[in-house]
C-alpha cells in the first residue's frame, strides 16, 4: 500500500450530504477485474452527460479543480454499497484525502486499505475547510498525518483525530494481511479451540 505522510494540494468542494458510492462510481464500471483505471469515471453520472461530454458545472470539471488531491464533502459521505471501486476511483483520479462531517462505515474502512486518508471533523470545521476549498487552485491545503493537522491556505490549523493503528499503517504503507499473518499462531490456536467449542461451524 502507498504511504500517506503529508499532502499539500488543491481541495475540491462537494457540499452535498449522503454522497453514495453509486454516485462515486456507478455500477457499469464495477465489471472490471482490475483496481486501476477508474479515475476517469469517478462521479461519472454527475461529471458527464449521456453523450460523454463533461458537465462544465461539476466541480472536478472546473479548470481550478481538475488537479484536486483533497475532497471536502458533506455528512454521511460514502454511504451505500461496499464497492471498493469507490476509493479505487478516488485514488486513481489523484485524490488522497477526503474530509467530511461523517463517513459511512464500509467506505471509511476501504479508504485506509488504499492509502487514502478520510478525516471526519465537526461540521463547523468542515465549513471552514469548505470555504477554503471554494477559493480554487491558488488555495492549497496541507494535511500532515504525523502531527494530525490540516493547514488551510490562510494558515489556520485544524487538528484531527485518527485511530493510532490506522495512522501507523498509513504512515508506513503497511499491508494488513502481512500484519495479521504475524499472528498466525493465535489463529491456529483459535481454530483448535473451536473444534471443541463450536465443532459445527
Amino acid at each position, binding site marked *: 500500500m502507498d504511504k500517506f505522510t503529508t499532502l499539500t494540494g488543491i481541495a475540491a468542494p462537494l*457540499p*452535498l*450530504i*449522503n454522497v*453514495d458510492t*453509486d*454516485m462515486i462510481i*456507478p*455500477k*457499469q464500471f*464495477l*465489471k*472490471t*477485474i*482490475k*483496481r486501476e483505471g477508474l479515475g476517469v469515471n469517478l462521479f461519472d*453520472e454527475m461529471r458527464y452527460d*449521456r453523450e460523454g461530454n463533461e458537465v462544465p458545472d461539476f466541480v472536478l470539471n472546473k479548470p481550478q479543480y481538475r488537479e484536486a488531491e483533497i475532497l471536502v464533502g*458533506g*455528512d*454521511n459521505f460514502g*454511504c*451505500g*454499497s*461496499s*464497492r*471498493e471501486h469507490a*476509493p479505487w476511483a478516488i485514488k486513481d483520479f489523484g485524490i488522497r484525502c477526503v474530509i467530511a462531517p*461523517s*463517513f*459511512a*462505515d*464500509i467506505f471509511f*474502512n*476501504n479508504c485506509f*486499505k*488504499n492509502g487514502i486518508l478520510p478525516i471526519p471533523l465537526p461540521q463547523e470545521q468542515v465549513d471552514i475547510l469548505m470555504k477554503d476549498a471554494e477559493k480554487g487552485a491558488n488555495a492549497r491545503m496541507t494535511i500532515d498525518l504525523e502531527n494530525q493537522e490540516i493547514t488551510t491556505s490562510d494558515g489556520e490549523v485544524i487538528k484531527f483525530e485518527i*485511530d*493510532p*493503528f490506522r495512522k501507523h499503517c498509513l504512515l508506513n504503507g503497511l499491508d*494488513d*494481511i502481512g*500484519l*495479521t*499473518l504475524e*499472528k*498466525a499462531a*493465535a*489463529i491456529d490456536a*483459535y*481454530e483448535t479451540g*473451536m473444534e471443541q*467449542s*463450536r*465443532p*459445527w*461451524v
Partner: protein
Amino acid sequence: MTAPKTLYDKIWDAHLVHEAEDGTSLLYIDRHLVHEVTSPQAFEGLRMSGRSVRAPDKTIAVPDHNVPTTLDRANGGMNEESRIQVDALDKNAKDFGIHYYPVSDVRQGIVHIVGPENGWTLPGMTVVCGDSHTATHGAFGALAHGIGTSEVEHVLATQTLIQKKSKNMKVEITGKLNPGVTAKDITLSVIGATGTAGGTGYVIEYCGEAIRDLSMEGRMTVCNMAIEGGARAGLIAPDEKTFDYVKGRAHAPKGAQWEAAMNWWKTLYSDDDAHWDKVVTIKGEDIAPVVTWGTSPEDVLPITAVVPAPEDFKGGKVEAAKRSIEYMGLTPGQKLSDVEIDTVFIGSCTNGRIEDLRAAAAILKGKKIKEGLRAMVVPGSGLVRAQAEEEGLAEIFIDAGFEWRLAGCSMCLAMNPDQLAPGERCASTSNRNFEGRQGYKGRTHLMSPAMAAAAAVTGKLTDVRDLQ
C-alpha cells in the same frame, strides 16, 4: 459473576482471536460469502502473493449481481465484461477449492438468500461478504456485515478480520403491527426516524413484540436494511422460529452437533441489564405502509402523505431534498398516491424470498396489472422460484401480466440488462433509491412487496389497504 452482555458482546467475545491494547481486534470469521463483482481483485491478490484460501470449507461463492434473469440465459445473453467476471468466479472457485453454486445450479441466487436457505448461516456466527447487504444474515443472530475487496482478500488469506468494536444500539418495535404493514415498512420507518447516518458506529439489535412476531423472512428484510441506516450490522436474537428455520437445512448441524449447537444458541440474547449506547423505541401501531419519495432511503413517508418541500428540512438536507425532488420529477404538496409509475420490480435480497412473493401474489390474485406497465418478479434464488411455482404463485404473477424471471440481483442495482430508462419511475421492493441506482436517471420508490403489487394494479403509488 460476569458483567451483563448484549447479544453483540457475546458473539464478539466468542470470535476474538487477538486484541491489542488499543482495542484493535482480530475477529474469526465463520462464513465468507463471495460473489463475482467484489472478489476478482481479491483472488488476484492471493495469486500475486502466492497465498491460498485458509478455510475453503467456510467460503461459499455464487454469481448473482451480473447474471441475466431472462429465461434464455443458458444461451448466453451476458455482455462480454459480465461474462468475464462470472468466468473469473468459476475459475477462482475451482482453483481455490471453495463451495460454489454456478449459474446453472438450481440453488443459484442472490448470495444473501442462498446462505440462509442452504443452512450456511447459523446463529452466533460471524458472516462477511463483499456486499453491504450482508447485514441480512443478522436475522439469525449472526454478526454479519459487508466488507470491501481488500478485506475480502484478508478474510480469504487469514479467515479473520481486523475490527474495532462498534457501540450497541437497541431498536425496539413494541406491540402489534396494523393490517397492511410489513417488515419492509418497519425497516424503512426506522431509517426514516433515525436517518441514514443514525446507525453509524453502531451494531443494531432489533427487538420487541413486532419483531418477535415476524417470520424469518421478515426478520431478514429488517436486518437487510440496517446498512441503509448506517449501522455496521443488524441483529435479532435467535428463538424457536430461528431454530425451526435452520433445522434440516443442507449445511446445518445434525445429531449430536445439533444438540451442542442448540445449547449455545439458546444463550444468545442480550442480558436484561446489558448496557446500550443508544435506544430507539417505535410503537408498532404507529407504523404505516410507507414509500420513499426521494433519493435516500431516509426519505420515507406514509403512502397517505404528500411530497415534502425542501423548506421542511434543516441544514444540508434542504439542498439535498431540493435535488431529490427535482431528480424524482415530483412537486411539493403532490399526493404520493397520485404519483404514476412505469415499472414494478419485485425481488432483491431485501424482498426476494418466498413470503415476499406470497404477499405480492395475495394482492394480485385474479387481477391484471395496469396496461402499459412493465412488471417483473425476480425470485431471490432458484429454490424460491421452484417453491413459488409449486405453490401456484408463478401462475398468479404471469396471469396478472408480470414477467416471471430467473434468480439474481437484477434491477435492484441494474448491473445486468434489467434497467430503468432515463425518467422511468419504478415501484421497487429493493433497498436503495439512489440517483441512477436502477438505471441512468431512473426514479425509484422503495416499498413492500404488497405495496409494489398494489402499484402494479393501479399504475400509481397505492395504499395497499385500499385493495385488501
